[in-house]
């Protein structure tokens, strides 16, 4: 007898029933083979396991966090902080030299200031590291949560204090005015103004790229609004703004639009577009309290 069947069907003669039973047992065995035999209540094992996993995510070793956040996680630690700080400060001094031509004596003074700045950064970092050495935060406890919050607040302050992007804040930046002569100071100021303008332009790019999509802005309108916004940029601490928002957020541009002469701004757009632009301008106005709180406007 030939029985033709589809792959999903099975036909066995009555004489082979014992074999069928054996196959069923074997299949069940194969299905259950990977399950652990944990006794009468399997859920105990599952609970233990999930508890272990939860605990793993609920505790954090702060030493490890510090290494990852400040030392790139590769064990560089304090020495890496110092090397980075020095490398960057030396590049800034090179840039200053390129712009206004430093004498050897002036360069020595600025190098000394850079070394002091790097040493100060190291001291701050080492103190922070000592404070949290060997500590582990347990998020299940209130104390652990408070420690974690304090750790992050202090880490942010440390990163801000040792940041290399705020030239006017670090030591070489603060002493440069007294090291340079009048001619050099003018050249350095002109260079600094160009940098500020280029940073401001990047903020404008961030805001206008959103605006042009929303209101179907033409090239002519784009050029007109850029000219208006570049006329008198708000005195925003660009380095601080970038650290707070990133360098391509639209909010600072919208805030600046809210401070423009609204009649001149409205004249750039047609009535339909202005309806949308004015909504964006109002959003920009709402950013003013945050900008003031964060002290982004330079004195």
């Amino acid at each position, binding site marked *: *007898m*030939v*029985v*033709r*069947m*589809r*792959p999903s069907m099975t*036909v*066995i*003669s009555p*004489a*082979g029933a014992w*074999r*069928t039973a*054996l*196959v069923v*047992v*074997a299949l*069940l*065995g*194969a299905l*259950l*083979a*990977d*399950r*652990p*035999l944990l*006794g009468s209540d399997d859920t105990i*094992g599952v609970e*233990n*396991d999930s508890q*272990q996993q939860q605990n793993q995510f609920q505790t954090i070793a702060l030493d490890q966090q510090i290494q990852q956040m400040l030392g*790139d996680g590769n064990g560089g630690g304090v020495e*890496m902080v110092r090397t*980075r700080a020095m490398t960057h400060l030396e*590049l*800034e001094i*090179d*840039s200053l030299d*390129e*712009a206004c031509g430093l004498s050897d004596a002036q360069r020595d003074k600025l190098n000394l200031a850079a070394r002091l700045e790097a040493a100060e950064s190291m001291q701050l970092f080492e103190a922070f590291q000592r404070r949290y050495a060997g500590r582990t935060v347990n998020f299940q406890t209130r104390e652990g949560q408070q420690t974690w919050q304090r750790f992050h607040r202090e880490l942010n302050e440390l990163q801000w204090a040792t940041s290399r*992007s705020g030239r006017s804040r670090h030591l070489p930046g603060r002493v440069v005015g007294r090291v340079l002569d009048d001619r050099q100071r003018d050249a350095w100021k002109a*260079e600094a103004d160009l*940098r500020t303008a*280029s*940073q401001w332009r*990047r903020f404008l790019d961030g805001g206008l*790229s*959103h605006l*042009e*999509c*929303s209101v*179907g802005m*033409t*090239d002519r309108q*784009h050029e007109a609004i850029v000219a208006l916004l570049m006329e008198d940029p708000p005195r925003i601490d660009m380095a601080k703004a970038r650290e707070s928002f990133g*360098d391509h957020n639209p909010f600072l541009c919208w805030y600046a639009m809210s401070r423009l002469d609204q009649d001149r701004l409205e004249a750039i757009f*047609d009535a*339909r*577009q202005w309806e949308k632009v004015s909504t964006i301008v109002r959003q920009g106005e709402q950013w003013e309290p945050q900008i003031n709180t964060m002290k982004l406007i330079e004195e």
Partner: protein
Amino acid sequence: MRSHSRAVGDGRGDAAAAAGVWLRFLGLVAAIAVGSGRADGQVAIEVDIVEAEAAPVETAAPDAPEDPPPAVPAAEEVPLTPEAMARQQIEQMAAQYEPMLMRVLQDELELVRTLHGDLPVEARRAIVAAGEKGVKEGAIAFSEAMSTPQPVPAPQGGDDGFLNAVGRAFGFPMPEEPGRSAEGAKKAEAKKKPVDPCHLVSDAVAASLIEQIGEASGKDFLDELSKREQRRRAATVRRLVGILDDDLSLSAKQRESIEAAIAEKWDEGVAMALDHQMEINGRKIYPGLPYKRVLPHLTPAQQSKLGDGKQSREIMRSNRQGMLQSQFFRRANLSQQTERDPWWFE
């Protein structure tokens, strides 16, 4: 589940594993027994694989009838071929990209409305229909590009990579072997160019607009698209050079010359450097940054800090899909159109 039994670590997992081995062994014995049943002459089991094209091999038992068996009914569910499954996946991916591209379409329609606020209703409907078609095609094209196998980064010796060679030998769509032929080089170059679904949408709208109002009147939209593209590229370059400035303390002259050098030979991959910066062993890596064009404008100290870009090139070679995705998401995220403009859609 295996890791679970290891985690418990009390020996019960080992007992389970041993039991499993025994049960599998029993299954094997059973299978042999069933197979040998055909030799007993009690019953013959023959399976016709319905979907197989080749005729099944007849292994009839001695008591089998000589008449040909009745025709086998067609299978109720035909499993998908690998090609059909791949297509299905592409369509599922495309469905996720369509809403993003719809926002891009609304942006383009907004620009058309700014330029041609007096379009008749019929023309508007036709342009929207063409745009929606562009959205669907763009989503499919992008999904296809995203499904293309990634090239395997070459080892540092400059070899093309063993896995690429094996892939080619088996006929997979791997990147062409470098220097193999002029045609191969051309193909490899074409593959490097990322698919931009947003451009497909813009092109669809532009083509339809020109069809509706004529080339002379519709040309202004094309001009605007071209200028907008230039603006976006310039903004990308400015932003990238600004990031380098933070890292390398560039002078104004250096910023200007680096901006010009990058813009001179534009590569869509430049935008990768904005989204995928990373730090390896204390050095910042900018995937997509054309190091060879930037380095000549730097001082030796700046060059030393930036590095030669070898790691960046390796990352770029292996992350074409990442590049495609970041480009597209960046563009789609610019759109803020949340509601359909009734002027177009009603």
